[in-house]
């Protein structure tokens, strides 16, 4: 019983940190520039496919993963400089609506292309064997994901609290006009954070592929999960999103093992609806 609980907790925690990372991808871009980035899942799937292609050419999953994430960051930079810039020209509610539809259109566009050129499913094998702790058999991939995510969260925390760019980003999230007055150019910060969020989604995608199979259709699911986590976490709160992801990941895993997998997904969406009904003013 206890052993089974520990197994669930570790799997839930692994799922939770992955959800946290996806949620962060939404939170950063929406909090900063009010664009609900529906392309996030595409970034994740592109990273996974790139990683699986690179695995044949470079030694080791870590190097392939890093290169894939770098590729996704470049891809995001190109998009930001071209299409996303057109969205940033609008303001207020117009920008939010345009952002939703443009990124929705782009996600369909890229999802279709991925289906055409890489229709198969990808599963990455981390090569960490299962461990037995106190009678519980813990999945190797879950432990690897939790360890790697812990390092990543540390880096993200450092970035937002100790680097000039990170503090500048938080300034723009709090008050765009105020940031301009302090000499921080919002558009440049927005571009950097858009690329950063794509990179985070790329990492999260690679982590996700260690636990489950990824197909082009996953991009839609992952985007929707990311939005829900970000909403439960408060949309513009970085720490809130991380906490929400971890809690939801554990709840989803437990609910899934107790009541069947479809209820796990329902739990996530229902939680987001409940939070929005309770606090609708968080997105305005």
């Amino acid at each position, binding site marked *: 019983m206890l052993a089974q609980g520990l197994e669930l907790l570790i799997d839930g925690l692994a799922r939770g940190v992955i959800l946290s990372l996806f949620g962060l991808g939404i939170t950063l871009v929406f909090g900063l520039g009010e664009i*609900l980035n529906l392309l996030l899942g595409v970034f994740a799937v592109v990273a996974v496919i790139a990683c699986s292609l690179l695995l044949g050419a470079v030694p080791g999953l870590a190097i392939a993963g890093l290169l894939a994430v770098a590729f996704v960051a470049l891809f995001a930079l190109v998009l930001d400089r071209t299409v996303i810039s057109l969205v940033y020209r609008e303001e207020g509610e117009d920008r939010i609506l345009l952002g939703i539809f*443009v990124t929705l259109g782009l996600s369909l566009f890229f999802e279709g292309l991925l289906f055409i050129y890489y229709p198969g499913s990808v599963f990455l094998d981390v090569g960490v064997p299962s461990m037995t702790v106190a009678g519980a058999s813990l999945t190797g991939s879950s432990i690897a994901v939790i360890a790697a995510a812990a390092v990543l969260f540390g880096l993200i925390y450092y970035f937002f609290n100790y680097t000039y760019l990170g503090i500048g980003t938080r300034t723009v999230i709090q008050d765009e006009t105020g940031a301009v007055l302090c000499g921080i150019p919002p558009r440049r910060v927005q571009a950097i954070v858009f690329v950063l969020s794509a990179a985070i989604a790329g990492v999260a995608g690679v982590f996700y592929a260690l636990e489950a199979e990824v197909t082009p259709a996953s991009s839609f699911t992952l985007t929707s999960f990311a*939005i829900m986590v970000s*909403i439960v976490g408060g949309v513009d709160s970085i720490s809130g999103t991380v906490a929400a992801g971890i809690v939801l990941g554990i709840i989803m895993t437990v609910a899934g093992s107790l009541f069947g997998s479809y209820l796990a997904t329902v739990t996530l*969406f229902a939680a987001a609806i409940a939070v929005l009904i309770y606090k*609708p003013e968080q997105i305005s």
Partner: protein
Amino acid sequence: MNANNPLSSLRGQLPVIAVFAALLLVPPLFFDPSTTYLSRRFITVMIFAIFAMALNIIFGETDQLILYMGGIAALGTYTTVLTAQYFEISPWLTLFVGAFVSGVFGALVCYVAARRQFTVIVLAIVTFAFQMIIMEVIVGLRDITGGTTGIPFRDLDLPAVESALGIGAFALQFYVLVGIFAAVFALYMWLTNSKYGLAFAAIRQDEFAARATGIDAIRLKVFAGFLSTFIIGFVGPFYAQTTGIVIPGLFSFNGVDVLVLIILVLGGLRSRFGPLVGAAIVIYLDNLLSQFGQWRTVTFGLLLTILFIYFQDGILPMAQSMYEERGIRDRLAGLRSGE
């Protein structure tokens, strides 16, 4: 009251008459009993035109963006089909039960949204979450819904009427849908020309000012929400009838909501015939691209992006304003050369 009034109002109705006459002529001209393919496409155009008109009422008129049209259509369809099976009665009767359940659900969501003062984005996300939940529940409750294998469904036909009129099943279904389209069209015309239209416009422009003048914004939003979701839930079973099977995949976000959004924006928000024109263009494109597999998704994604960046006001209204500008220019030229 002057004598010109009836005549000029008839002139104003001329496009309406022409469009409906053209619609009535579609089956004799294009429906071939040997191939059902083309007839099905025309039926799909009508279904999506009605979906888009429903979205036009709730989104175009009251600025409430809903992204669970597929889910609502599924709710209406599954309610219709399952109650018909359970009570062993005709789906023509349970159709109204399905539509009513959809309408009440839609009204409830709009009520909570209006009460809690959701912005357009919050409502969009909440309804999207409901779309995902509805899809998951349908797949999950496979004992009742048949899961992804679905339920065979072809009972929305009227063999007696077909043989009495001497027309095929598809032609009859098309006429039934033209009838529903006409009813929704009339409802929309009545809405926009009545006090409701004015109140909708007031809410759209400034909700607080509208409330200050005594407009019950919550009631109106709920009313619009009920109408739209009732219509979508009503048409859902006809949508399932075209494929002969009720499966969750039919009602997916990409399969319904994305298409309806493209149709509505292409045709133009708050345009009378926009939904029909948009549906004709989109279903034609869909048909053209279906042989290229996933290139269809690529094209629709591109279309959605370009439409929203450059043609937010819709193709039809843009063409109209271009035509009108040219008309005025011609008249000016005529004046100058004549005098």
